[in-house]
Protein backbone atom coordinates (compact mmCIF):
# COMPACT_ATOMS: atom_id res chain seq x y z
CA UNK A 1 0.00 0.00 0.00
CA UNK A 2 1.35 3.33 -0.99
CA UNK A 3 1.18 5.90 1.74
CA UNK A 4 -0.84 9.00 0.89
CA UNK A 5 0.36 12.39 2.01
CA UNK A 6 -1.96 14.21 4.38
CA UNK A 7 -2.62 17.54 2.76
CA UNK A 8 -1.90 20.51 4.96
CA UNK A 9 -2.83 23.87 3.37
CA UNK A 10 0.15 25.54 5.06
CA UNK A 11 2.49 23.31 3.11
CA UNK A 12 2.60 24.47 -0.48
CA UNK A 13 5.16 21.91 -1.60
CA UNK A 14 5.56 18.43 -0.16
CA UNK A 15 8.05 15.97 -1.61
CA UNK A 16 8.27 12.47 -0.15
CA UNK A 17 11.00 10.18 -1.44
CA UNK A 18 10.61 11.89 -4.80
CA UNK A 19 12.68 9.97 -7.36
CA UNK A 20 13.40 10.13 -11.07
CA UNK A 21 15.32 7.46 -12.90
CA UNK A 22 16.42 7.61 -16.52
CA UNK A 23 17.25 3.98 -17.29
CA UNK A 24 19.88 2.98 -14.76
CA UNK A 25 20.72 6.57 -13.88
CA UNK A 26 19.00 8.02 -10.82
CA UNK A 27 18.86 11.75 -11.44
CA UNK A 28 16.80 12.51 -8.33
CA UNK A 29 17.22 10.02 -5.51
CA UNK A 30 14.48 9.89 -2.83
CA UNK A 31 14.33 13.56 -1.86
CA UNK A 32 11.93 14.66 0.88
CA UNK A 33 11.09 18.17 2.05
CA UNK A 34 8.24 20.58 2.68
CA UNK A 35 7.92 24.24 1.80
CA UNK A 36 5.60 26.42 3.88
CA UNK A 37 3.24 29.06 2.54
CA UNK A 38 5.00 32.40 2.00
CA UNK A 39 8.46 30.91 2.43
CA UNK A 40 11.48 31.67 0.22
CA UNK A 41 13.04 28.27 -0.36
CA UNK A 42 16.51 28.18 -1.94
CA UNK A 43 17.22 25.06 -3.98
CA UNK A 44 20.98 24.81 -4.46
CA UNK A 45 23.30 22.23 -5.94
CA UNK A 46 26.19 21.80 -8.33
CA UNK A 47 25.57 21.49 -12.08
CA UNK A 48 24.28 17.99 -12.69
CA UNK A 49 23.16 17.40 -9.09
CA UNK A 50 19.56 16.94 -10.24
CA UNK A 51 18.04 20.35 -9.51
CA UNK A 52 16.50 20.87 -12.92
CA UNK A 53 15.03 17.37 -13.01
CA UNK A 54 13.51 17.87 -9.54
CA UNK A 55 12.15 21.26 -10.51
CA UNK A 56 10.60 19.87 -13.71
CA UNK A 57 8.77 17.24 -11.65
CA UNK A 58 7.50 19.84 -9.18
CA UNK A 59 6.18 21.93 -12.10
CA UNK A 60 4.25 19.01 -13.56
CA UNK A 61 6.51 18.73 -16.61
CA UNK A 62 8.04 15.36 -15.80
CA UNK A 63 6.40 12.39 -14.04
CA UNK A 64 8.30 10.95 -11.06
CA UNK A 65 9.37 7.31 -11.28
CA UNK A 66 9.11 6.97 -7.51
CA UNK A 67 7.87 8.73 -4.40
CA UNK A 68 5.21 11.39 -4.14
CA UNK A 69 4.88 15.10 -4.49
CA UNK A 70 2.12 17.61 -3.78
CA UNK A 71 2.33 21.14 -5.16
CA UNK A 72 -0.37 23.71 -4.35
CA UNK A 73 -2.59 20.85 -3.19
CA UNK A 74 -2.28 18.74 -6.36
CA UNK A 75 -0.47 15.48 -7.01
CA UNK A 76 2.46 16.00 -9.38
CA UNK A 77 2.14 12.41 -10.61
CA UNK A 78 -1.52 12.48 -11.59
CA UNK A 79 -2.78 16.08 -11.63
CA UNK A 80 -0.12 17.81 -13.71
CA UNK A 81 -2.53 20.18 -15.51
CA UNK A 82 -3.91 21.42 -12.19
CA UNK A 83 -0.37 21.84 -10.89
CA UNK A 84 0.59 23.95 -13.93
CA UNK A 85 -2.44 26.23 -13.44
CA UNK A 86 -1.54 26.91 -9.82
CA UNK A 87 2.13 27.79 -10.24
CA UNK A 88 4.25 30.45 -11.87
CA UNK A 89 7.58 29.75 -13.58
CA UNK A 90 10.46 31.89 -14.70
CA UNK A 91 14.01 31.11 -15.76
CA UNK A 92 17.03 33.04 -16.88
CA UNK A 93 16.47 31.78 -20.41
CA UNK A 94 12.73 32.31 -20.49
CA UNK A 95 11.93 35.63 -21.98
CA UNK A 96 8.72 37.33 -22.89
CA UNK A 97 7.80 37.99 -26.49
CA UNK A 98 10.27 40.62 -27.69
CA UNK A 99 8.00 41.75 -30.50
CA UNK A 100 5.02 42.38 -28.24
CA UNK A 101 4.62 45.50 -26.11
CA UNK A 102 4.89 45.36 -22.34
CA UNK A 103 1.11 45.50 -21.82
CA UNK A 104 0.52 42.99 -24.64
CA UNK A 105 2.79 40.44 -22.98
CA UNK A 106 0.93 40.89 -19.71
CA UNK A 107 -2.45 40.54 -21.42
CA UNK A 108 -1.31 37.45 -23.29
CA UNK A 109 -0.04 35.60 -20.21
CA UNK A 110 -2.94 36.79 -18.03
CA UNK A 111 -5.32 35.49 -20.71
CA UNK A 112 -3.55 32.13 -20.96
CA UNK A 113 -4.02 31.68 -17.21
CA UNK A 114 -7.73 32.48 -17.61
CA UNK A 115 -7.84 35.91 -16.00
CA UNK A 116 -10.73 38.25 -16.82
CA UNK A 117 -10.08 41.37 -18.96
CA UNK A 118 -11.12 43.79 -16.23
CA UNK A 119 -8.83 42.09 -13.73
CA UNK A 120 -5.93 42.16 -16.19
CA UNK A 121 -6.44 45.88 -16.82
CA UNK A 122 -6.64 46.75 -13.16
CA UNK A 123 -3.63 44.66 -12.19
CA UNK A 124 -1.59 45.96 -15.13
CA UNK A 125 -2.06 49.51 -13.85
CA UNK A 126 -0.88 48.68 -10.36
CA UNK A 127 2.03 46.58 -11.66
CA UNK A 128 3.27 49.42 -13.87
CA UNK A 129 3.24 51.67 -10.79
CA UNK A 130 5.03 49.14 -8.62
CA UNK A 131 7.78 48.65 -11.21
CA UNK A 132 7.96 52.32 -12.12
CA UNK A 133 7.26 51.19 -15.68
CA UNK A 134 4.47 53.61 -16.63
CA UNK A 135 6.56 55.08 -19.46
CA UNK A 136 7.47 51.64 -20.76
CA UNK A 137 3.93 50.27 -20.99
CA UNK A 138 3.70 50.78 -24.77
CA UNK A 139 7.29 49.82 -25.58
CA UNK A 140 8.29 46.59 -27.26
CA UNK A 141 9.80 44.21 -24.72
CA UNK A 142 12.76 43.64 -27.07
CA UNK A 143 13.80 47.28 -26.67
CA UNK A 144 14.07 47.09 -22.86
CA UNK A 145 17.37 46.59 -21.00
CA UNK A 146 17.94 43.09 -19.61
CA UNK A 147 17.34 44.11 -16.01
CA UNK A 148 13.91 45.53 -16.92
CA UNK A 149 13.06 42.39 -18.83
CA UNK A 150 13.89 40.10 -15.92
CA UNK A 151 11.85 42.20 -13.49
CA UNK A 152 8.96 42.18 -15.94
CA UNK A 153 9.27 38.42 -16.56
CA UNK A 154 9.09 37.79 -12.81
CA UNK A 155 6.06 40.04 -12.44
CA UNK A 156 4.34 38.27 -15.31
CA UNK A 157 5.12 34.87 -13.74
CA UNK A 158 3.16 35.86 -10.61
CA UNK A 159 0.54 37.99 -12.38
CA UNK A 160 -2.15 35.30 -12.04
CA UNK A 161 -1.46 35.10 -8.27
CA UNK A 162 -0.11 31.55 -8.23
CA UNK A 163 0.31 29.80 -4.90
CA UNK A 164 3.96 29.18 -5.66
CA UNK A 165 6.46 30.51 -8.18
CA UNK A 166 9.50 28.54 -9.42
CA UNK A 167 12.49 30.69 -10.32
CA UNK A 168 15.35 28.98 -12.14
CA UNK A 169 18.46 31.18 -11.85
CA UNK A 170 16.41 34.32 -12.31
CA UNK A 171 19.27 36.76 -11.75
CA UNK A 172 22.04 35.20 -13.87
CA UNK A 173 24.05 37.90 -15.65
CA UNK A 174 21.94 40.74 -14.21
CA UNK A 175 23.80 43.83 -12.95
CA UNK A 176 24.32 44.09 -9.17
CA UNK A 177 21.81 46.85 -8.55
CA UNK A 178 19.04 45.23 -10.59
CA UNK A 179 19.82 41.90 -8.92
CA UNK A 180 19.02 43.48 -5.57
CA UNK A 181 15.88 45.17 -6.89
CA UNK A 182 14.82 41.75 -8.14
CA UNK A 183 15.04 40.36 -4.62
CA UNK A 184 12.90 43.26 -3.41
CA UNK A 185 10.22 42.03 -5.80
CA UNK A 186 10.59 38.52 -4.37
CA UNK A 187 10.09 39.83 -0.82
CA UNK A 188 7.09 41.80 -2.00
CA UNK A 189 5.57 38.65 -3.53
CA UNK A 190 6.04 36.63 -0.33
CA UNK A 191 4.43 39.41 1.69
CA UNK A 192 1.33 38.73 -0.42
CA UNK A 193 1.44 35.05 0.48
CA UNK A 194 3.15 33.73 -2.66
CA UNK A 195 5.66 30.97 -1.95
CA UNK A 196 9.00 31.23 -3.74
CA UNK A 197 11.14 28.28 -4.83
CA UNK A 198 14.40 29.57 -6.27
CA UNK A 199 17.70 28.26 -7.64
CA UNK A 200 20.79 30.45 -7.89
CA UNK A 201 24.54 30.27 -8.37
CA UNK A 202 25.03 33.51 -6.40
CA UNK A 203 25.80 32.41 -2.86
CA UNK A 204 24.96 35.83 -1.38
CA UNK A 205 21.43 35.22 -2.64
CA UNK A 206 21.28 31.95 -0.73
CA UNK A 207 21.47 34.12 2.39
CA UNK A 208 18.23 35.89 1.41
CA UNK A 209 16.28 32.62 1.54
CA UNK A 210 14.32 31.54 4.62
CA UNK A 211 15.60 28.00 4.18
CA UNK A 212 18.07 26.43 1.80
CA UNK A 213 18.53 22.86 0.57
CA UNK A 214 21.73 21.67 -1.08
CA UNK A 215 21.60 18.76 -3.50
CA UNK A 216 24.59 16.52 -4.15
CA UNK A 217 24.42 13.60 -6.59
CA UNK A 218 20.62 13.50 -6.63
CA UNK A 219 20.15 13.63 -2.85
CA UNK A 220 19.44 16.51 -0.48
CA UNK A 221 22.55 16.59 1.69
CA UNK A 222 21.59 19.57 3.85
CA UNK A 223 18.44 21.56 4.55
CA UNK A 224 18.04 24.35 7.06
CA UNK A 225 18.07 28.11 7.52
CA UNK A 226 21.24 29.79 6.24
CA UNK A 227 22.13 30.68 9.81
CA UNK A 228 21.88 27.08 11.04
CA UNK A 229 23.72 25.71 8.00
CA UNK A 230 26.64 28.06 8.63
CA UNK A 231 26.69 26.92 12.26
CA UNK A 232 26.42 23.24 11.31
CA UNK A 233 29.30 23.43 8.81
CA UNK A 234 31.32 25.88 10.86
CA UNK A 235 31.37 28.26 7.90
CA UNK A 236 31.50 32.05 7.58
CA UNK A 237 29.14 32.21 4.66
CA UNK A 238 26.97 30.09 2.37
CA UNK A 239 29.72 29.82 -0.22
CA UNK A 240 31.84 27.88 2.27
CA UNK A 241 28.87 25.63 3.13
CA UNK A 242 28.29 24.98 -0.55
CA UNK A 243 31.96 24.27 -1.28
CA UNK A 244 32.17 21.76 1.58
CA UNK A 245 29.11 19.83 0.39
CA UNK A 246 29.49 20.03 -3.38
CA UNK A 247 33.12 18.92 -3.30
CA UNK A 248 31.88 15.53 -2.10
CA UNK A 249 30.04 15.02 -5.39
CA UNK A 250 31.07 11.82 -7.13
CA UNK A 251 29.18 12.21 -10.38
CA UNK A 252 31.42 12.86 -13.34
CA UNK A 253 29.52 16.00 -14.23
CA UNK A 254 30.87 19.06 -12.56
Amino acid at each position, binding site marked *: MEKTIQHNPDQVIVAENLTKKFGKFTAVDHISFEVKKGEIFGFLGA*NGAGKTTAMRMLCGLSIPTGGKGIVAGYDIGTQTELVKKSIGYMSQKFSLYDDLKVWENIELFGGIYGMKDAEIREKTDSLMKLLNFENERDKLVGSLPLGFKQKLAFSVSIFHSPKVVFLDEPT*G*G*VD*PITRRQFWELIYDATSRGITVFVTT*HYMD*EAEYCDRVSIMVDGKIEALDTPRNLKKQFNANNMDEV*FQQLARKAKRVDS
Partner: protein
Amino acid sequence: MNNQNNNPDIAVHCESVSKNYKDVEALRNINFDVERGEIFGIIGPDGAGKTTLFRILTTLILANEGTALVDGFNVVGDYRDIRKRVGYMPGRFSLYQDLTVEENLNFFATVFNTTIEENYDLVKDIYQQIEPFKNRRAGKLSGGMKQKLALSCALIHKPSVLFLDEPTTGVDPVSRKEFWGMLKNLKAQGITILVSTPYMDEASLCDRIALIQNGEFLTIDTPKNIVSQYKNKLWAVESDEMHKLLLDLRANETTKSCFAFGDKIHISMDNGDLIVDSLQKLLLEKGHTNIFIREIEPTIEDCFMQLSQR
Protein backbone atom coordinates in the same frame (compact mmCIF):
# COMPACT_ATOMS: atom_id res chain seq x y z
CA MET B 1 51.23 54.18 -34.53
CA ASN B 2 53.77 51.65 -35.65
CA ASN B 3 55.56 51.68 -32.30
CA GLN B 4 52.67 49.79 -30.83
CA ASN B 5 53.15 47.12 -33.43
CA ASN B 6 56.60 46.61 -32.13
CA ASN B 7 55.94 46.68 -28.43
CA PRO B 8 56.35 43.03 -27.56
CA ASP B 9 55.04 43.48 -24.02
CA ILE B 10 51.56 44.41 -25.16
CA ALA B 11 49.35 41.50 -26.20
CA VAL B 12 46.18 43.51 -26.86
CA HIS B 13 45.96 47.21 -27.61
CA CYS B 14 42.61 48.92 -27.97
CA GLU B 15 42.30 52.60 -28.85
CA SER B 16 39.08 54.64 -29.07
CA VAL B 17 37.05 51.64 -30.16
CA SER B 18 33.34 52.26 -30.68
CA LYS B 19 30.65 50.06 -32.16
CA ASN B 20 27.02 50.82 -33.02
CA TYR B 21 24.23 48.50 -34.03
CA LYS B 22 21.84 50.89 -35.79
CA ASP B 23 21.00 53.38 -33.03
CA VAL B 24 22.31 51.24 -30.16
CA GLU B 25 25.78 52.19 -28.94
CA ALA B 26 27.22 48.82 -27.98
CA LEU B 27 30.71 50.14 -27.21
CA ARG B 28 31.81 53.72 -26.60
CA ASN B 29 35.41 54.83 -26.78
CA ILE B 30 37.12 51.77 -25.32
CA ASN B 31 40.83 52.20 -24.51
CA PHE B 32 43.02 49.62 -22.84
CA ASP B 33 46.15 47.50 -23.10
CA VAL B 34 46.61 43.92 -22.00
CA GLU B 35 50.16 43.07 -21.05
CA ARG B 36 51.70 39.82 -22.18
CA GLY B 37 51.16 37.01 -19.71
CA GLU B 38 48.34 38.79 -17.88
CA ILE B 39 44.91 37.50 -16.92
CA PHE B 40 42.76 40.49 -17.81
CA GLY B 41 39.10 40.39 -16.75
CA ILE B 42 36.24 42.28 -18.40
CA ILE B 43 33.57 42.34 -15.73
CA GLY B 44 30.00 43.48 -16.14
CA PRO B 45 26.39 42.39 -16.60
CA ASP B 46 24.78 40.92 -19.71
CA GLY B 47 24.28 43.51 -22.41
CA ALA B 48 27.22 45.67 -21.26
CA GLY B 49 29.19 45.07 -24.49
CA LYS B 50 31.57 42.28 -23.44
CA THR B 51 30.79 39.97 -26.36
CA THR B 52 30.92 42.81 -28.89
CA LEU B 53 34.40 43.71 -27.68
CA PHE B 54 35.55 40.07 -27.94
CA ARG B 55 34.16 39.76 -31.46
CA ILE B 56 36.02 42.89 -32.57
CA LEU B 57 39.29 41.65 -31.08
CA THR B 58 38.92 38.20 -32.62
CA THR B 59 38.26 39.83 -36.05
CA LEU B 60 34.69 38.54 -36.34
CA ILE B 61 33.09 41.98 -36.61
CA LEU B 62 34.38 45.44 -37.43
CA ALA B 63 34.37 48.41 -35.08
CA ASN B 64 32.86 51.66 -36.35
CA GLU B 65 35.72 53.67 -34.93
CA GLY B 66 39.11 53.15 -33.35
CA THR B 67 42.06 50.83 -33.72
CA ALA B 68 42.77 47.48 -32.15
CA LEU B 69 45.92 45.37 -32.26
CA VAL B 70 46.30 41.79 -31.11
CA ASP B 71 49.84 40.51 -30.78
CA GLY B 72 50.89 43.59 -32.75
CA PHE B 73 48.58 42.80 -35.67
CA ASN B 74 45.76 45.07 -36.74
CA VAL B 75 42.28 43.54 -36.40
CA VAL B 76 41.26 44.94 -39.79
CA GLY B 77 44.30 44.65 -42.04
CA ASP B 78 45.98 41.64 -40.47
CA TYR B 79 42.97 39.55 -39.55
CA ARG B 80 44.47 36.40 -41.08
CA ASP B 81 47.52 36.60 -38.82
CA ILE B 82 45.35 37.19 -35.78
CA ARG B 83 43.11 34.22 -36.50
CA LYS B 84 46.15 31.97 -36.64
CA ARG B 85 47.44 32.97 -33.26
CA VAL B 86 44.47 33.53 -30.98
CA GLY B 87 42.21 31.05 -29.24
CA TYR B 88 38.56 31.96 -28.80
CA MET B 89 35.95 30.30 -26.64
CA PRO B 90 32.61 31.96 -27.32
CA GLY B 91 29.91 32.24 -24.67
CA ARG B 92 27.69 29.78 -26.47
CA PHE B 93 28.93 26.22 -26.93
CA SER B 94 30.07 26.20 -30.56
CA LEU B 95 31.71 22.85 -31.17
CA TYR B 96 30.34 20.17 -33.46
CA GLN B 97 27.66 18.38 -31.44
CA ASP B 98 27.65 15.36 -33.74
CA LEU B 99 31.40 14.82 -33.63
CA THR B 100 32.93 12.96 -30.70
CA VAL B 101 35.12 14.60 -28.10
CA GLU B 102 38.28 13.35 -29.79
CA GLU B 103 37.04 14.20 -33.29
CA ASN B 104 36.34 17.78 -32.25
CA LEU B 105 39.82 18.22 -30.79
CA ASN B 106 41.41 16.57 -33.80
CA PHE B 107 39.40 18.78 -36.14
CA PHE B 108 40.54 21.99 -34.50
CA ALA B 109 44.16 20.80 -34.42
CA THR B 110 44.00 20.00 -38.14
CA VAL B 111 42.40 23.32 -39.08
CA PHE B 112 45.37 25.03 -37.45
CA ASN B 113 47.89 22.76 -39.15
CA THR B 114 48.94 20.95 -36.04
CA THR B 115 48.22 17.70 -34.21
CA ILE B 116 46.90 16.79 -30.79
CA GLU B 117 50.26 15.16 -30.01
CA GLU B 118 52.26 18.28 -30.81
CA ASN B 119 50.57 20.47 -28.20
CA TYR B 120 49.26 17.81 -25.88
CA ASP B 121 51.26 19.22 -22.98
CA LEU B 122 49.27 22.42 -23.04
CA VAL B 123 45.84 20.78 -22.88
CA LYS B 124 46.83 17.69 -20.91
CA ASP B 125 45.55 18.77 -17.49
CA ILE B 126 42.19 19.79 -18.89
CA TYR B 127 41.74 17.17 -21.59
CA GLN B 128 42.61 14.26 -19.30
CA GLN B 129 39.49 15.00 -17.30
CA ILE B 130 37.29 14.30 -20.34
CA GLU B 131 39.49 11.75 -22.08
CA PRO B 132 37.56 8.80 -20.60
CA PHE B 133 34.64 10.05 -22.72
CA LYS B 134 36.61 10.71 -25.90
CA ASN B 135 34.25 8.58 -27.98
CA ARG B 136 31.13 10.35 -26.76
CA ARG B 137 29.49 12.90 -29.04
CA ALA B 138 30.00 16.46 -27.88
CA GLY B 139 26.25 17.11 -27.85
CA LYS B 140 25.82 14.37 -25.22
CA LEU B 141 28.29 15.87 -22.75
CA SER B 142 27.26 17.58 -19.53
CA GLY B 143 27.78 21.34 -19.14
CA GLY B 144 31.03 21.00 -17.23
CA MET B 145 32.53 18.56 -19.74
CA LYS B 146 31.49 20.70 -22.70
CA GLN B 147 33.29 23.62 -21.11
CA LYS B 148 36.49 21.58 -20.72
CA LEU B 149 36.31 20.35 -24.32
CA ALA B 150 35.73 23.87 -25.62
CA LEU B 151 38.74 25.12 -23.68
CA SER B 152 40.88 22.26 -25.01
CA CYS B 153 39.84 23.06 -28.59
CA ALA B 154 40.63 26.76 -28.10
CA LEU B 155 44.10 25.81 -26.87
CA ILE B 156 45.18 23.00 -29.17
CA HIS B 157 47.04 25.28 -31.61
CA LYS B 158 48.98 26.90 -28.75
CA PRO B 159 47.56 30.41 -29.09
CA SER B 160 49.47 33.38 -27.78
CA VAL B 161 46.30 35.14 -26.63
CA LEU B 162 43.25 33.30 -25.34
CA PHE B 163 39.82 34.97 -25.44
CA LEU B 164 37.26 33.45 -23.10
CA ASP B 165 33.80 34.96 -23.31
CA GLU B 166 31.87 34.22 -20.10
CA PRO B 167 33.32 30.74 -19.58
CA THR B 168 31.77 30.42 -16.10
CA THR B 169 28.26 31.74 -16.68
CA GLY B 170 25.67 29.36 -15.26
CA VAL B 171 28.42 27.23 -13.73
CA ASP B 172 28.15 26.33 -10.03
CA PRO B 173 30.59 27.86 -7.51
CA VAL B 174 32.70 24.71 -7.11
CA SER B 175 33.23 24.23 -10.84
CA ARG B 176 33.91 27.93 -11.23
CA LYS B 177 36.78 27.68 -8.75
CA GLU B 178 38.17 24.68 -10.65
CA PHE B 179 37.99 26.57 -13.92
CA TRP B 180 39.94 29.52 -12.54
CA GLY B 181 42.53 27.04 -11.32
CA MET B 182 42.97 25.87 -14.93
CA LEU B 183 43.40 29.48 -16.09
CA LYS B 184 46.15 30.01 -13.54
CA ASN B 185 48.02 27.01 -14.95
CA LEU B 186 47.69 28.37 -18.49
CA LYS B 187 49.00 31.74 -17.39
CA ALA B 188 52.00 29.96 -15.89
CA GLN B 189 52.66 28.57 -19.37
CA GLY B 190 52.88 32.09 -20.76
CA ILE B 191 49.47 32.45 -22.38
CA THR B 192 47.81 35.86 -22.19
CA ILE B 193 44.18 35.51 -21.17
CA LEU B 194 41.35 37.93 -21.77
CA VAL B 195 38.28 36.68 -19.92
CA SER B 196 34.83 38.15 -19.41
CA THR B 197 32.43 37.37 -16.57
CA PRO B 198 29.28 38.68 -14.94
CA TYR B 199 30.42 37.32 -11.55
CA MET B 200 32.02 40.14 -9.57
CA ASP B 201 33.60 37.71 -7.10
CA GLU B 202 35.89 36.43 -9.88
CA ALA B 203 37.58 39.84 -10.16
CA SER B 204 40.16 39.01 -7.50
CA LEU B 205 41.41 36.10 -9.63
CA CYS B 206 42.49 38.48 -12.42
CA ASP B 207 45.72 40.50 -12.54
CA ARG B 208 43.84 43.52 -13.82
CA ILE B 209 40.20 44.14 -14.60
CA ALA B 210 37.98 46.52 -16.50
CA LEU B 211 34.48 47.11 -15.14
CA ILE B 212 32.04 47.57 -18.00
CA GLN B 213 28.47 48.87 -18.07
CA ASN B 214 26.33 50.16 -20.98
CA GLY B 215 29.20 49.94 -23.47
CA GLU B 216 31.67 51.94 -21.39
CA PHE B 217 34.55 51.04 -19.13
CA LEU B 218 33.91 52.41 -15.63
CA THR B 219 37.50 51.80 -14.54
CA ILE B 220 40.61 49.76 -15.41
CA ASP B 221 43.04 48.73 -12.69
CA THR B 222 44.16 45.93 -10.41
CA PRO B 223 41.33 44.66 -8.18
CA LYS B 224 43.26 45.92 -5.16
CA ASN B 225 43.60 49.47 -6.50
CA ILE B 226 39.93 49.61 -7.47
CA VAL B 227 38.96 48.66 -3.93
CA SER B 228 41.30 51.27 -2.46
CA GLN B 229 39.70 53.96 -4.64
CA TYR B 230 36.25 53.41 -3.14
CA LYS B 231 35.00 56.86 -2.20
CA ASN B 232 33.40 56.40 1.23
CA LYS B 233 33.85 54.45 4.38
CA LEU B 234 31.78 51.32 4.20
CA TRP B 235 30.02 49.57 7.07
CA ALA B 236 28.38 46.19 7.44
CA VAL B 237 25.23 46.05 9.54
CA GLU B 238 23.34 42.99 10.79
CA SER B 239 20.29 42.34 12.92
CA ASP B 240 17.74 39.57 13.38
CA GLU B 241 15.32 41.01 10.83
CA MET B 242 17.35 41.72 7.73
CA HIS B 243 14.62 42.89 5.39
CA LYS B 244 13.19 45.32 7.93
CA LEU B 245 16.76 46.46 8.60
CA LEU B 246 17.24 47.29 4.91
CA LEU B 247 14.03 49.34 4.84
CA ASP B 248 14.88 51.15 8.09
CA LEU B 249 18.41 52.00 6.96
CA ARG B 250 17.14 53.21 3.62
CA ALA B 251 14.63 55.50 5.34
CA ASN B 252 17.44 57.05 7.39
CA GLU B 253 18.20 60.57 6.10
CA THR B 254 21.99 60.40 6.28
CA THR B 255 22.24 57.08 4.42
CA LYS B 256 24.08 57.55 1.14
CA SER B 257 23.91 54.02 -0.22
CA CYS B 258 22.54 50.87 1.28
CA PHE B 259 22.49 47.39 -0.28
CA ALA B 260 21.92 43.84 0.88
CA PHE B 261 25.08 41.71 0.70
CA GLY B 262 24.30 38.17 1.72
CA ASP B 263 23.67 38.10 5.46
CA LYS B 264 24.80 41.72 5.92
CA ILE B 265 23.83 45.14 4.67
CA HIS B 266 26.53 47.42 3.33
CA ILE B 267 25.93 51.06 4.08
CA SER B 268 27.78 54.32 3.54
CA MET B 269 26.75 57.68 4.97
CA ASP B 270 26.32 61.11 3.43
CA ASN B 271 28.58 62.96 5.83
CA GLY B 272 31.29 60.39 5.22
CA ASP B 273 31.29 59.10 8.73
CA LEU B 274 28.90 56.86 10.47
CA ILE B 275 28.48 57.24 14.18
CA VAL B 276 28.10 53.71 15.42
CA ASP B 277 26.43 54.66 18.70
CA SER B 278 23.75 56.82 17.10
CA LEU B 279 22.96 54.23 14.45
CA GLN B 280 22.82 51.53 17.10
CA LYS B 281 20.41 53.68 19.10
CA LEU B 282 18.23 54.35 16.06
CA LEU B 283 18.00 50.65 15.24
CA LEU B 284 17.18 49.74 18.84
CA GLU B 285 14.37 52.29 18.76
CA LYS B 286 13.04 50.60 15.62
CA GLY B 287 12.91 47.34 17.56
CA HIS B 288 15.96 45.56 16.11
CA THR B 289 17.76 42.89 18.11
CA ASN B 290 21.27 41.43 17.85
CA ILE B 291 22.62 44.48 16.05
CA PHE B 292 26.19 44.33 14.75
CA ILE B 293 27.91 47.25 13.02
CA ARG B 294 31.50 47.24 11.82
CA GLU B 295 33.66 48.95 9.23
CA ILE B 296 34.62 46.75 6.27
CA GLU B 297 36.69 46.78 3.11
CA PRO B 298 34.54 47.16 -0.01
CA THR B 299 34.18 44.29 -2.47
CA ILE B 300 34.47 44.76 -6.24
CA GLU B 301 30.68 44.59 -6.34
CA ASP B 302 30.46 47.59 -3.96
CA CYS B 303 32.88 49.44 -6.26
CA PHE B 304 30.92 48.49 -9.36
CA MET B 305 27.70 49.81 -7.85
CA GLN B 306 29.31 53.06 -6.75
CA LEU B 307 30.92 53.64 -10.16
CA SER B 308 27.81 52.70 -12.14
CA GLN B 309 25.64 55.13 -10.19
CA ARG B 310 27.78 58.16 -10.92
